[in-house]
């Protein structure tokens, strides 16, 4: 499959170049003296020397090196501007054996892609980032880069980069101060020593990735003779004399770290999947003989309302589950969001013989209200001959204007729960009361769902069962406050 390469990770012929015939089939699209070509060569050499050509995925950025994929005979993906590290992480996690190289310029990495590079570096997942810093936007024609030097003129800083443009961004330093990266170096291309250092650094970060040791980052100070308006030799001198003042070259981080990155191959074992999803093959026991047609022929609407923390949603979910266990259809819609931190919390539940058509409960058959505002708000919406259960430990006034025939049950849910030493079980008290007041399902069905929900906290089952029975008793015996003799028992 692989084409013969004779020691280079470059394509032998740059067919992907739109004009890739003749001369363009063997030379780059870069301007004479551009640093990109050198960095390409060092990367290609490192890939070849490390024997990773088949595994390598090069991410082409947006910028002059957008056409990286013309040249590298490796897997190639071209990314949106600044997003190469995010794309690279997608590749790396898809195939941990792949060697991912994110190759980016200064506009791409240090401007539009700042969030993506910082996050990739913060994660520390082994990918290799080559950051080409030439202090200017090349592809778009010489605009100011995040790394443009103070006072330096560009087409968008025509009077020189000044105070309003802020000082240049030092990416290698930023990356190096994060904990996760294992290797960070700034190198250059202006003389033999710095070129060797660049070669070595690129190979090093690839090797660290191969060994699963971590995220590697090499910033290469590079020449853009075209937009610096200099000869290649003068550009080298400029990088050496001016850029390095601002961007000192050298290693910023070189940690010894044990290989740590390893991912198993995903499993597709059906048994394991159903187990992890907690899907059960066992049918739950059924206790109801018929649908609660005395509440509605085909579809019973309930509303449970209270403050966040009252447990309205949990009780609603238990109801819906119980009904589904009994073979009915059921839905639960919570009011969701900030309520979980103490606002109001409403739940709409429907239990239908065949199918829940409309899952909202603007006019419920049954209302459970955990506080006075809920009772005041939703009491009048209950249907004629409907049923209301409210927490009589916190509600003293029942609205006078209720629809015709509505039956109201005050149950001291909170009092009972507190007396049991578990204030959170007041919703279970309410469920017991609901069952007794409406005969909606059966006690056993609801208790089964409660036990099922507490499967991971078995110690909590007895107190919940007790709470449920107290709710049943409260309705049966008609006490709206806990009888004094029972308090604290």
């Amino acid at each position, binding site marked *: *499959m*692989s084409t013969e390469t004779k020691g280079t990770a*470059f394509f*032998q*012929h740059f067919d992907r170049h*739109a004009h890739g*015939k*003749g*001369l363009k*089939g*063997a*030379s780059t699209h870069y301007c*004479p*003296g551009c640093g990109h*070509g050198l960095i390409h*060569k060092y990367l*290609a050499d490192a890939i070849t020397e490390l024997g990773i050509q088949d595994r*390598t*995925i090069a*991410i082409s950025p947006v910028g002059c090196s957008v056409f990286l*994929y013309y*040249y590298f005979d490796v*897997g*190639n*993906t*071209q990314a*949106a501007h600044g*997003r190469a590290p*995010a*794309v690279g*992480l*997608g*590749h790396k*996690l*898809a*195939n941990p054996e792949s*060697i991912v190289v994110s190759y980016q310029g200064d506009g791409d990495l240090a401007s539009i892609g700042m*969030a993506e590079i910082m*996050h990739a570096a913060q994660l520390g997942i082994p990918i290799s980032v080559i950051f080409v810093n030439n202090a200017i936007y090349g592809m778009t024609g010489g605009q100011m880069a995040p790394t443009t030097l103070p006072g330096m003129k560009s087409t968008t800083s025509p009077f020189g980069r000044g105070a309003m443009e802020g000082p240049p961004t030092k990416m290698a330093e930023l990356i190096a101060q994060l904990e996760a990266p294992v290797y960070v170096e700034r190198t250059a291309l202006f*003389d033999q020593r710095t*070129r*060797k250092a660049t070669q070595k650094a690129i190979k090093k970060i690839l090797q660290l990735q191969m060994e699963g040791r971590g995220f590697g980052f090499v910033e290469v100070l590079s020449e853009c*003779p075209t937009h610096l308006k200099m000869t290649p*030799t003068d550009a*080298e001198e400029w990088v050496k004399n001016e850029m390095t003042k601002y961007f000192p070259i050298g290693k910023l981080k070189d940690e010894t770290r044990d290989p740590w990155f390893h991912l198993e*191959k*995903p499993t*597709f074992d*059906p048994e394991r*999947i159903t187990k*992890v999803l907690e*899907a059960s093959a066992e049918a739950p026991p059924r206790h109801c003989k018929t649908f609660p047609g005395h509440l509605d022929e085909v579809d019973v609407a309930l509303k449970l309302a209270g403050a966040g923390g009252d447990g309205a949603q949990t009780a609603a979910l238990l109801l819906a589950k119980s009904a589904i266990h009994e073979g009915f*259809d*059921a839905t639960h819609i919570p009011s*969701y*969001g900030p309520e979980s931190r103490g606002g109001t919390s409403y739940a709409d539940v429907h239990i239908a013989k065949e199918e*829940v*058509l*409309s899952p*909202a409960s603007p006019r419920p058959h049954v209302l459970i209200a955990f506080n006075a505002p809920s009772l005041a708000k939703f009491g009048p919406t209950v249907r004629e001959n409907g049923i209301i259960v409210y927490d009589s430990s916190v509600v003293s006034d029942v609205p006078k204007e209720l629809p015709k025939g509505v039956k109201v049950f005050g149950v001291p849910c909170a009092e009972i729960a507190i007396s049991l030493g578990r204030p959170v079980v007041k919703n279970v008290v309410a469920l017991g009361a609901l069952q007794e007041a409406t005969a909606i399902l059966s006690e056993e069905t609801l208790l089964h769902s409660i036990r099922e929900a507490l499967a991971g906290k078995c110690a909590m089952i007895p107190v919940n069962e007790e709470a449920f029975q107290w709710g049943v008793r409260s309705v049966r015996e008609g006490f709206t406050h806990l009888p004094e003799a029972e308090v604290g028992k």
Partner: protein
Amino acid sequence: MRNDRGGVLGGSLREFPSPAGTPKEDHIMAKAKERPKPILLPQLCKGCGRCIEACPRGCIQMGTEIDQESGLVPVVVDRETCNACGLCITACPEPYGLNTIEYELEDPKHLFGEGVAKPVTPDQPSERIPLPKVQPMVLKGNYAAAIGAILAGCRHVFGYPITPSTEGAELMAKVLPQLDGVFLQAVSEVATVNHLYGCAGAGLPCMTFTSSPGFSLMLEGISYMIGAEVPAVFVNVMRGGPGLGNIGPEQADIKLGCRGLGHGNTHAIILAPTNPQEMLDLSMEAFRLAFEYRNPVFIFGDGYLGQMTGRVQLPETMIRPGIPGWAVYGDEAHRHNLINSIDLIEVDLEKRNEALNEKYARMQANEQRSSSFRADDAELLVIACNTPARMAKGAVERLRREGMPVGLFTPLTLWPFPIDALKPLLGHAKKVLVVEASAGQLEDELRLALSHADITGIEISHLRHMGGVLPQEGEIVDKVHEVLEVTA
């Protein structure tokens, strides 16, 4: 001098003009030396002169003659003085500039020929395998969509928390590590979509959960995915907008999904489930469609649908995914592949657009989905999707009990709009009531579809809510009365 392949270079290397002052035999002699001296094909030298500085012996000078092929002035190497130190090679920016590679001397085709034909890697096909029979589950819509994805073979999920979609990410964060999959919390929705682009580019099924403001942020990447023909599944649990809006249920991203998937000529299948069961079923289906068409697929639900809990039956089979031949997986078989959306040649990009549009036409022809309820003899059709479709179903049931000739038509794909199934119903239903939680975005899709299908004479009225309010059963009933009574 033109070669027979239409290139501008000479037909054989031996005919190339030698650099001034260098006998061409020198190129050949390089082979005999142990440390080979550099070879330079003058037409591949851009004359930047970086090698001149690099050479410690001063063997290289700027040339004086313009190369006829490149139009540039190449350097001249004095190979007599050269001691083959190789420093000039390290300083040359061109891959095939100064180097010691010798094969091109033997076979110029390597450099100037047509190149190697692109190999075609076969697909490693997906497999459908049986799933043990289990009892119906009681699941929130977001969970149901997540489980659908797992059963479709998705083991890579990327996401950024946003209400009311977050439970999808939470379930994946819990479940995927137990299946040796990966959940990665991205730094933003912008990063999320690009993680998907990379992972899907590697050929694996992957997905995200988001909600309206997050979806807006993803549009850039979605355009790239469509352009590069990369599959992935997005669940967008729509909430109230514009701006930060609220977290209530809305359907006001229909316009984005159907008409605004980022820049360029983009389209994608937009699935619109109406209950938790369909959240699971359509999530599984979404992956199949994404890979069949090599295009992202979107599941649009409203906030209620993400949050609603209901009965969900798992399917009898699940998917073990393969790797498509086009993937950039990072192994030998897929090395020659490229994922990109850039094309600088206008006519080529036009062709690419035409191919994409042919694909969209195939989707329109084959992937329309809808359901209907008591619509066969209806004189008025309520059209609604997502949770409003359930409210409408309740309303239609009530109205039928009253003897009203009303039916429900529910698009399960918002794009392509299911006009083929709607058309025959409009033979008897000359009135349509569009019920939606947006300022008419579903109605616009309907009107466009009617217009493209040359269907006229339909009286369209609507019931709309916005800002996190859903149309309720009662008001749909009232509205139908109003429409039928006013026009009767």
